[in-house]
């Protein structure tokens, strides 16, 4: 039985690249169905946190659990097939493939192209018009729509979003996050990495702030947002005490 109160769990996770320790002891439990916002300044380790969950970065210490099972060191391909959908920072699309081909790659092998496309184009009609264009020729917002469609058509259990808003106008961002809310309503657990509280304050159930590889704030988003300013602009030690 999958424990619903901890769909994803990190236990004492340390991780990094080339001897640089980016995460320094992360303990985190994400219950099924939650929308969790991961906040923090640049370089704090937010992206690494998502990469660890998706299996792209193997923790140097600690464990990752998915649905109650230990998945530390499991092949990211297997995790993706098991329902972890990470949309990476920047544009998570194949620039030299068409919109339709991007969707096709996203769907598992058991779904037909027609079903996949009709589902994505229902939510994002604009993509239907651009079906045969190369994804690289789309605007930034449209590219993120393609990326989000992947979450729509692959029926994930968990959606991991890394700075969906980067470099996009706020109106576009709000529109994208409305779709994320729709996806979350279908029962998908969502972990959103953002630098800006404002962009996700109305969609997240809970927020954590990561600074220097540690979780320094954890709580309802409106509880933690007033403390973020001091957290960002002063040292991590002051905040954590």
């Amino acid at each position, binding site marked *: 039985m999958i424990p619903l109160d901890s769909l994803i769990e990190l236990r004492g996770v340390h991780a990094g690249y080339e001897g*640089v320790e980016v995460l320094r002891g992360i303990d985190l439990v994400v219950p099924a169905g939650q929308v969790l916002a991961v906040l923090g300044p640049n370089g704090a380790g937010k992206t690494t946190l998502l990469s660890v969950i998706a299996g792209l970065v193997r923790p140097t210490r600690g464990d990752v659990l998915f649905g109650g099972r230990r998945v530390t060191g499991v092949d990211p391909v297997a995790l993706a097939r098991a329902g972890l959908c990470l949309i990476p920072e920047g544009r998570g699309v194949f620039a030299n493939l068409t919109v339709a081909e991007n969707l096709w790659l996203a769907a598992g092998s058991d779904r037909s192209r027609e079903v996949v496309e009709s589902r994505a184009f229902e939510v994002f009609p604009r993509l239907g018009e651009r079906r045969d264009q190369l994804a690289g020729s789309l605007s*930034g917002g449209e590219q993120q729509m393609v990326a989000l469609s992947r979450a729509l058509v692959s029926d994930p259990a968990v959606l991991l979003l890394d*700075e969906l808003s980067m470099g996009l106008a706020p109106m576009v961002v709000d529109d994208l996050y409305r779709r994320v809310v729709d996806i979350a309503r279908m029962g998908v657990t969502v972990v959103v990495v953002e630098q800006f509280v*404002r962009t996700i304050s109305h969609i997240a159930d809970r927020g954590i702030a990561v600074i220097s590889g540690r979780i320094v704030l954890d709580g309802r988003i409106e509880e933690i947002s007033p403390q*973020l*300013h001091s957290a960002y602009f002063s040292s991590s030690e002051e905040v954590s005490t």
Partner: protein
Amino acid sequence: MDLEVTDVTVRFGGNTVLSDVGLDAVSGGITSLIGPNGAGKTTLFNVITGVLKPTSGRVMLGTNDMTSMPVHKRVRLGLGRTFQRLELFGTLTVEENLRVAASAIPRERRTSEVQRVIQQLRLQQVSDVRADTLSTGTGRLVELARALVGEPSLLLLDEPASGQNDSETRVFSEVLVDLADRGMTILLVEHDMNLVMAISHRIHVLDFGQLIASGSPAEIRSDVRVQAAYLGQESLEVGSGRRRSDVSTGAHP
């Protein structure tokens, strides 16, 4: 020599990554460049170091126009840099790393220059250690040392604090302050706000490819636009109008 960047615009295809950015860094001071992810810091850095050519605009070092110079010529003009990810010559020792850098300067000064830099950054202990076995913190010092060979007039540092622990960062920042005191121009791109606020004389803030603020650390700390850029909270006074003006009050739809 002072660094002066004027009206630099960079477009990739239809995407404008930097639009009309101008900034300066004066000798004898530490100038920092900050901004949220995707603001265009790395692009600007690449334009200054010569890895990327700007669509338009000018980069001057002192009275020399560097805008379309290849990398190695900029270095001869007095530009030194470090990398966000260490780019040491991994299979060589620390001293050999510096000797390679010294081979770009006149032969008779090479040995003394290498020794001078080793002493300046107190690297005597590791001078015979292979570079790829060093910790990141020491590696950053070695990379700084390599950039200092030949006494550059302009030093560009790309996120030197990442991967360093607190004591390493402290040592590193002391070195930077010392270098600036001796008249070097230092431009720092950094995420670590503590470091930036502690040692910068002047800070430039980039957001959405535009320069949104320049000033002293105290000015930047209290600048509403900067807070907006970093926290996503918008104030009504922001002029560009590119962001929707609503103050986050935690209101839910």
